[in-house]
């Protein structure tokens, strides 16, 4: 599948304050086929997750941005503030899922291969071992009530790896302004329900087989040189 970067369209709109460009977003392509992550995650789930859920977040995010744009242009502060929860939810959904697709890779493209280099050493020194990190993330992911994400992130100020959870579609940065996500695992029920039903721990156990540590390593080396 051709890799297409995030496509943005600039829409120029005349506004009282002059020309203003509003960027809208569209669905990024997956870097692999829907069925390529089987048996860890079924093709059905990948297709629904990408084409329906992620697309809906993008559609609603664009809508909210347009409404925000016109509210700001009109000086309508209360509408602008009211829209913040829709922007955080839908925008967060778009941001989180864009990262998620890059976090996964088919086995034949390196999915599941343990991290090497700086990230690997950082994991060993901070958590003891890769297994310990996986246990910790799985425990937090399973214990999360309702919908949310479990993250492996790096605190670029403290130069330290962290494991965090966020609720709903809150991006990792809501837990700390200096946190950058390396790996995120979607524990919303739509991410695993058709295949694993209510057995979230099974999904968490299997997702490590398709984890794209190469990508996580690249982000880590870029943020923490």
């Amino acid at each position, binding site marked *: 599948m051709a890799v297409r970067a995030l496509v943005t369209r600039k829409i120029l709109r005349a506004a009282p304050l002059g020309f203003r460009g509003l960027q809208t977003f569209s669905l990024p392509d997956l870097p692999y086929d829907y069925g390529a992550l089987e048996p860890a995650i079924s093709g059905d789930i990948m297709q629904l997750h990408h084409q*329906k859920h992620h697309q809906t977040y993008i559609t609603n995010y664009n809508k909210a941005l347009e409404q925000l744009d016109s509210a700001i242009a009109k000086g309508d502060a209360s509408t602008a503030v009211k829209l913040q929860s829709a922007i955080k939810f839908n925008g967060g959904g778009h941001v989180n899922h864009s990262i998620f697709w890059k976090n996964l890779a088919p086995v034949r493209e390196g999915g599941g291969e343990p991290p090497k280099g700086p990230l690997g050493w950082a994991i060993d020194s901070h958590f003891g071992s890769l297994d310990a990190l996986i246990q910790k993330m799985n425990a937090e992911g399973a214990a999360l*009530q309702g*919908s*949310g994400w479990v993250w492996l992130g790096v605190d670029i100020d403290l130069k330290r790896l962290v494991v965090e959870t966020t609720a709903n579609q809150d991006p990792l940065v809501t837990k700390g302004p200096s946190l950058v996500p390396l790996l995120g695992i979607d524990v*919303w*029920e739509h991410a695993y*329900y058709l295949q694993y039903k*209510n057995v979230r721990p099974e999904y968490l156990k299997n997702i490590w087989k398709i984890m794209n540590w190469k990508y996580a390593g690249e982000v880590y080396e870029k943020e923490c040189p």
Partner: protein
Amino acid sequence: MNLLSCSSNHCPLSSGFVATIDSPLKSSLSIPHLGWGQRRDNVRNKRRLSKIVAYHGLKNPPYKLDALEPYMSQKTLEVHWGAHHRGYVEALNKQLEKNDILYGHTMDELIRVTYNNGNPLPEFNNAAQVWNHDFFWESMQPGGGDMPTLSLLQQIEKDFASFTNFKEKFIEAALTSFGSGWVWLVLKREKKCLAIVKTSNAMNPLLWNDIPIISLDVWEHAYYLDYKNDRAKYVNTYMDHLVSWNAAAARMARAQAFVNLGEPKIPVA
């Protein structure tokens, strides 16, 4: 442990309590090769007393698991009730095993106590979700939907201008609910009016002392097997074919023992 299950519909204990007897008899009965004489000996030689502890049981929905087809499939009921709801009950029982103070509460009390005024204890999620799901199953019926009648309809028309408006608002609430949660029609105690409330995760209106009349589960597990991501179709189907206005009317009637909605307009001859 011997389980005397009280979870059937015929059980007079409506709260679904299950009594279990932690007795030494069980250990000897489970060894098949011992004859009766030896089993009696074992019993006689044991000096420990049996301990009775009360737990919560999984209540059956008031209809068979396939009764809501085709609007809510049997498969969904089997997983939602049989796995999720049962999971909450079992997790709660395991937690209560270790906690002598909490196990004596009724479910309503347990929810309020474990909510701990906003700093919930670990038992809260399980207790509240057990209650929420019991309430949800009873908020639906085969052949549901349509409209409420008589005084409930009058109250809805009073508080929402029309039933159509209420239905629109309820559906809108369900569709704008972020993440996992519930949508409720409640009777507010102080304001003495009906209102639509959204809650997230396990929260329910009992926590701020309002009286729930109907509920809709908008956790993804409630509709994913039948409708995938199409929450709108699920919510509309619920309003058109599943919601039990009979149950709602009964709950309204009970609620009026606690909330005075004013004098009924009885025509004078």
